[in-house]
């Protein structure tokens, strides 16, 4: 089992390499068992729509999980982007119903295949890092997003109400 710290270190190292090389379109390994670098083109779809036919406008305007529908008909669940603790919807919603080229990690786990998008672009367009969540969070909250998960108002309110363990009144032992 890989630790988050090792993944974070790997991410930081890879990011540094990217900045040096300027090759902002190559997926970074995260050291997760079953991961495989993958770059491909696919159509961005609302997964609930794809499964049920219940299809709001614009793939749900960022409120629905998105998938990548590949040319062979395979539907791939996008679970993660380049930001810490964030999904890929903010990065892909602009491509709803359109083709996108993605670069990231296709991870085959014991439970399901998932995709972590690290870079994206319109076909033949310019690559950009898949970190739209932190950009949007920063713009909405007026602060840097490096520790967004500790500073987010919803997180703060939820943890304040229920504690870090999710059980009101149950607190970590003081050291």
């Amino acid at each position, binding site marked *: *089992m890989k630790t988050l710290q090792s993944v974070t270190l790997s991410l930081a190292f890879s990011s540094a390499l990217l900045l040096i090389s300027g090759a902002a379109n190559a997926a970074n390994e995260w050291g997760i068992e079953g991961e495989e670098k993958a770059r491909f083109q696919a159509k961005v779809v609302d997964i*609930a729509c794809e499964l049920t036919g219940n299809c709001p406008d614009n793939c749900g305007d960022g409120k629905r999980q998105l998938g990548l529908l590949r040319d062979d008909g395979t539907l791939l669940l996008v679970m993660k982007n380049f930001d810490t603790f964030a999904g890929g919807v903010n990065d892909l919603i602009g491509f709803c119903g359109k083709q996108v080229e993605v670069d990231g990690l296709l991870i085959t786990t014991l439970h399901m295949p998932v995709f972590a998008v690290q870079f994206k672009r319109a076909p033949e367009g310019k690559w950009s890092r898949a970190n739209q969540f932190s950009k949007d969070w920063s713009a909405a909250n007026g602060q840097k997003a490096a520790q967004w998960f500790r500073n987010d108002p919803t997180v703060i309110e939820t943890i304040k109400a229920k504690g870090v*363990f*999710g059980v009101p009144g149950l607190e970590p032992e003081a050291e």
Partner: protein
Amino acid sequence: MIKSILGAFAAVMIALSSASPVAAAPQRISVTGEIIDTWCYVTEIMYALGTAHHQCAVWCAVGGIPVSILGEDGNVYVVLRLEEEDTNVANPTVIQIQTHQVTVDGDFYERDGVKYLFVTQVKDDQGVVNLNHEDYGIQPFGE
């Protein structure tokens, strides 16, 4: 006459093929299990169950990562609907029941190796019952 009928038929077929995806019939199932953060659990990047991982599960849900139910059968069911709420990215209701032990009825779909669940009814919510923080601490970071 036959040409016009065939033409109309072709037009209908073209219209149908460009409309919303054709939905397959779901299977109605009942699932009992823990509400989990899908990413941390399925990738095993850290211990990702119970009170030890509750805070991180909230972070990930707020961050828009899909939420699932880890069923007693060992299956991971990605939740795409919760009763009347059909949004599934940072859904406020789902955030509030992270780590809870629940029993739900729902419409089940399986596609390309992923199990999806559209919850029609939460039949039981026992709250957080998997008290494992003394064994695993706070995942990750220890605080």
